[in-house]
């Protein structure tokens, strides 16, 4: 078959990642248009029920490598490379996420394959897939095609919607001997949560804090501002979470949460793509930043160029007064 193979990521409890499920739905749609089939690939301890259930998203087959651990890319490259080669898949598709980048990149080298990343849409042209990839801070969209098979497609976070269509999938258990170098990395702990367990997904108003806050103490002003609204909470960028300024549970973007509050008020956030993909569907976006060239102003409804340390406390007071 000349189908599309999708890697389906799961957590330690066996729950599949939403972006992987979106990729399955997208692969099923594209396969139908190409006149071929879509299949999923899972590794680790996935139950029969769990694997078959992926059929719901339109894949007809689920390859399962039980002896291969989930969570690190290189062993999964071994499995996918073998399945793609043995069964003649034309494309490998990944939902947004870090592991997909690493596996897709590994396959590029292993199979001498073309790779396109941060893909926001895939279309069929002359019986082949063409990817839309935004480039240069999303100022242009490149249509990227493949000159040979297989082609590797790495989606942007939230690019593909989850759609339930089909029924059960057939499970194909595969046994793959891992490369010597694929076993040289050991996952010691996975998915460690750092900092308080805060809930940002239920908030109507989110104050998103970035590196421009200057220090962990800068988040005090964010919390004051969030408190001035009804049902407000504070979110953070990856940079400040990595720096230990704010809890991981509050992080938005590629390796964090995706949110869509009524109001997203970004303070000291530059607006890197990895952050943007996690909050761009907010109903209203306001940005306060002293750098007039910050990319966040490109997708804000209201942009305020100025010193957040001066503006935030006064804004908090004014909103409290207005609501009083």
């Amino acid at each position, binding site marked *: 078959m000349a189908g599309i193979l999708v890697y389906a990521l799961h957590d*330690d409890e066996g729950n599949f990642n939403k972006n992987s499920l979106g990729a399955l739905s997208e692969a099923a749609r594209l396969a139908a248009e190409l006149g071929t089939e879509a299949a999923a690939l899972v590794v680790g301890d996935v139950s029969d029920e769990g694997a078959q259930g992926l059929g719901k998203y339109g894949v007809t087959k689920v390859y399962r490598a039980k002896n291969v651990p989930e*969570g*690190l*890319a290189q062993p999964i*490259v071994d499995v996918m490379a073998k399945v793609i080669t043995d069964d003649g898949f034309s494309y490998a598709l990944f939902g947004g996420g*870090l*592991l997909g980048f*690493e596996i897709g*990149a590994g396959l*590029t*080298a292993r199979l*001498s*394959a*073309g*790779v*396109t990343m*941060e893909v926001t849409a895939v279309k069929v042209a002359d019986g082949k897939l*063409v990817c839309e990839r935004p480039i*240069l801070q*999303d100022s*242009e*969209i*490149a*249509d990227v*095609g493949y*000159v040979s098979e297989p082609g590797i497609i790495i989606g942007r976070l939230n690019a593909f919607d989850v759609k339930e269509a089909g029924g059960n999938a057939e499970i194909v258990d595969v046994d793959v001997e891992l*490369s010597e*170098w694929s076993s*040289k*990395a*050991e*996952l*010691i702990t*996975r*998915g*460690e949560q750092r900092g308080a367990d805060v809930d940002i997904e239920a908030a109507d*108003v989110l104050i998103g804090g970035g590196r421009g806050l200057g220090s962990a103490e800068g988040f005090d002003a964010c919390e004051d501002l969030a408190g001035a609204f009804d049902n407000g909470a504070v979110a953070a960028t*990856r940079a400040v*979470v*990595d720096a230990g300024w704010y809890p991981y549970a509050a992080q938005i973007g590629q*390796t964090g949460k995706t949110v869509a509050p*009524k*109001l997203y008020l970004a303070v000291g956030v530059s607006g890197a793509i990895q952050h943007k993909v996690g909050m761009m569907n907010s109903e*209203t*976006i*306001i940005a306060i930043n002293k750098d007039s*060239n910050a990319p966040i102003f490109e997708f804000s*409804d*209201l*942009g*305020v*160029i*100025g*010193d957040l340390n001066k*503006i935030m406390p*006064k*804004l908090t007071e*004014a*909103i409290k007064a*207005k609501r009083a």
Partner: protein
Amino acid sequence: MKICVLVKEVPDAAVQKRIDTGTMRLDRSGENNLNPFDTHAIEAAMQLKEGGDLQVDEVVAVTMGPGSAQRALQKAVALGADRSVHLTDDALVGSDVCATGVALAKVLESESPDIVLLGQQSDDGECYTMGAVLADHLKMASLTQVVKMDVEDGKLRCERQAEYGYDTVALSLPAVIAVGDAINEPRYPSLKAIMGAKKKPLDTKSAGDLGLNPDEVGEAGSKTTVVALNPPPAKEAGEIIEDEDTAETVEKIVNWLDERKLI
């Protein structure tokens, strides 16, 4: 033990980047600079060398690119690298991720490093992929987007954020590590180091020197092709307020929010 650090010259952050629609490649004619993420990779290499947990004899900066890319190597050397290798050849022009991986893997093979460090992304391409591509070619353990790295029992103990939180991974050497900008605070080069950078050994290599087949690199070796370039869907430009009088600015924001019933 030898560490190779991959560096790249990218258009300066202040330069408005554009694609040359004749070649469908990035116009690199403006002001260029060392990719900011690579300065963190160099710093990580220097900390491994100075830390003493590993016996690091040499840090080698490696780049692929046109003649001007030597400036990126000079900056890397000013930041502490002992010498540098410049892979440059007209045959390499137009390489995609796949073809770039083939070429860089060859130049790294010629150095036989124990550790390869690089920035997790370049400011221009933002592909995030080169570390994992090279690890597969070089048959080395690998991890990308690393924000903490320590030496423990001769292994690299690394931390990074993945889909479900922070992962801790121990890697045996040799290994390829792509680092994020949270991993360290890069040092500033001393004036003496900047002046001395040009005196450190620089080795220039062509595709032929490395035994690269012209069919596997450059445009010929690329497996992707940009078939069209389109503007993104038009979005209504937002309002902009420049803060001159903060009381007035705040009043404007509050009114704006109030009009939209967001207070």
